[in-house]
């Protein structure tokens, strides 16, 4: 390698045996690496100290309401899809102090929560998750930038991974977000695992991405590697576990608040909020005031909330959305419909988490298909 950093657009091959050097290089650049690791029977995101923290040789089987880890026949590092966590937990933590106020004579003084200055490297960001990051960026940084989100977000290094396989609930192809990583990354990896070969094609997306490669042993890319990567992405794209027609979804949802399907899905929905917690773009939160016992100090906390909670819409002691059907309708109509009005994009990236982690296997793609069937017209003279 020359002294100059690899530039955006550069591509290299990284041998599997040099992956540790790659991690070290990222860490040496000052980043705290967070990425996939096996915990409690799932692949979740946590701190990566060494490559042995990665889910080497693991994959998962996903379906509506089902998730099981399984051993792979190989030693792939990124041979899984997505688990219950998403990157939002780092940028928008589930529980976070915003500020602290102390009494000061007749008045009070507010001190903002300082942000942790350590930049984060997200290792293994999938294409759908890059799309989700862009969406939460619009939410938290589109207007008045949220200080804690933007302080962390502007320092994140996105090490993306192109998916080598599709999960049982994946539908990123339908949502146009994957599986290929085409933009919005600092580095993009594709894991090549063929007989006798285990390596990564590395694409540099930004200067920040290139700079962490400076001390990593790299080889120039080969045509064969390029062809293999193209085939990998094509294979993943053709094996999506789910599909959903996104055409006209906004209008469909906004014009169907009375569709009978809402009542049907509400009979199954437990309002457990799992879908909103697992969703990489759901951003709703509430605030909590936590005073000290002597009432001299008080803290303002932010906590993930969900539109499935009855308290969420409470107005004058009464929830506006009291029925389960109205809450499911709100979630889906927002996610796939009014999100377009608010942020110029769908709120769904096709990651399938809401399907997998729903305890009663409600499937967003199935619900959308059902909502596309026009409700029966009222019978003239019938009913009431």
């Amino acid at each position: 390698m020359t002294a100059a950093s690899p530039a955006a657009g550069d591509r290299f091959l990284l041998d599997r045996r040099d992956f540790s050097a790659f991690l070290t290089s990222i860490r040496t650049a000052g980043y705290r690496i967070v990425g996939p690791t096996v915990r409690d029977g799932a692949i979740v995101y946590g701190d990566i100290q060494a490559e042995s923290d990665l889910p080497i040789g693991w994959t998962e089987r996903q379906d509506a309401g089902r998730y099981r880890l399984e051993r792979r026949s190989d030693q792939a590092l990124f041979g899984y899809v997505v688990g219950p966590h998403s990157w939002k937990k780092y940028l928008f933590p589930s529980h976070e102090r915003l500020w602290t106020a102390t009494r000061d004579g007749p008045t009070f003084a507010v001190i903002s929560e300082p942000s942790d200055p350590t930049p984060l490297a997200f290792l293994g960001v999938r294409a759908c998750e890059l799309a989700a990051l862009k969406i939460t960026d619009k939410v938290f940084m589109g207007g008045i930038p949220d200080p804690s989100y933007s302080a962390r977000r502007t320092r994140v290094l996105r090490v993306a991974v192109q998916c080598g396989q599709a999960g049982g609930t994946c539908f990123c192809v339908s949502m146009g977000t994957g599986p290929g990583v085409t933009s919005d990354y600092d580095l993009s990896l594709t894991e090549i695992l063929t007989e006798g070969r285990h390596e990564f094609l590395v694409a540099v997306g930004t200067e920040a991405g290139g700079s962490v490669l400076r001390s990593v042993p790299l080889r120039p890319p080969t045509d064969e590697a390029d062809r293999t990567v193209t085939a990998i992405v094509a294979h993943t794209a053709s094996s999506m576990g789910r599909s959903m027609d996104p055409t006209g979804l906004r209008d469909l949802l906004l014009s169907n608040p009375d569709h009978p399907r809402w009542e049907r899905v509400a009979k199954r929905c437990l309002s457990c909020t799992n879908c909103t917690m697992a969703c990489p773009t759901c951003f709703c939160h509430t605030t909590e005031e936590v005073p000290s016992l002597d009432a001299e100090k008080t803290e303002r906390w932010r906590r993930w909330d969900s539109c499935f909670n009855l308290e969420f819409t409470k107005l004058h002691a009464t929830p506006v959305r009291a029925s389960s059907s109205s809450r499911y309708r709100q979630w889906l109509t927002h996610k796939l419909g009014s999100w377009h009005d608010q942020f110029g994009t769908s709120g769904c990236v096709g990651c399938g988490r809401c399907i997998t982690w729903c305890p009663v296997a409600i499937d967003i793609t199935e619900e959308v298909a059902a909502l596309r069937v026009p409700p029966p017209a009222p019978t003239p003279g019938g009913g009431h």
Partner: protein
Amino acid sequence: MASDVPSPSPAPSSHPLAPAPYFVRRQTAETGDTNTLVLAPMDGGPVPPALPGQFNMLYVFGVGEAAISLSGDPTDSTQVVHTVRNAGRITAALAQLPPGKAVGVRGPYGRGWPVDAAAGRDVVLMAGGLGLPPLRPVLYHFLSHRAQYGRIEVVYGARTPKDLVYYDQIQEWRQRSDLRFQVTVDAADRSWYGDVGLVTARIPDVRFEPGNTIAFLCGPEIMMKYAARDLEARGIPRSSIWISMERNMKCAVGICGHCQFGPEFVCRDGPVFRYDVVRDWLAAREI
């Protein structure tokens, strides 16, 4: 290498969602459960400029925040005025604050009444219950620029005579010849000689030129829905009717998700909406 990583920026000195310290200058009872608070900045500085119809987040130390409409004179830069119904933990705490005590204020937030669009037109203001306080700033505005507007008709309805806010001020307004201020209550005892009936029942008696009138409605949703329908029936187009919505609010800046009403964030896109924009959502249930 380290220089390639953006250096950590120091924590901002003040969080955009942190309240500024104000103190209670005055607190007066309007009705049995509703008080008007006059608040001024602790540091003696001016209050941020606000438009009629906007709201503040009021904060009680150690208790929490509530969204409350501004209800004072919008040109007064020395203080803010809020009329608050004691209806929950935070508003109850606000109601108990004596003069001198600290209150946190952040805001103003949201879109207010389109006073500029009212220029040269007849104006109808309809308020139900605690819908009068958010309309009072707009009335101050109209009266201080009286020549710019045509007729000004106000209809204010409350549950009973005891539930009327701004009682003395309404007496004064009713004496004015450049303003017609009707009051009606849902029910009354024999000490009341005014009208009894819904605010909507007064609409046939409101005077305006339908093609050149703007109407601002504030009150319970069902009242605004029926009032808008009846004003429409009298010839005011939907696009000239504006309503002020209320929803659960936490952040007031469109990121917490609580106040969504169809595609709108009530805190950011409202609370004042043009009726034709939100009419379908008002008609649907549990939006």
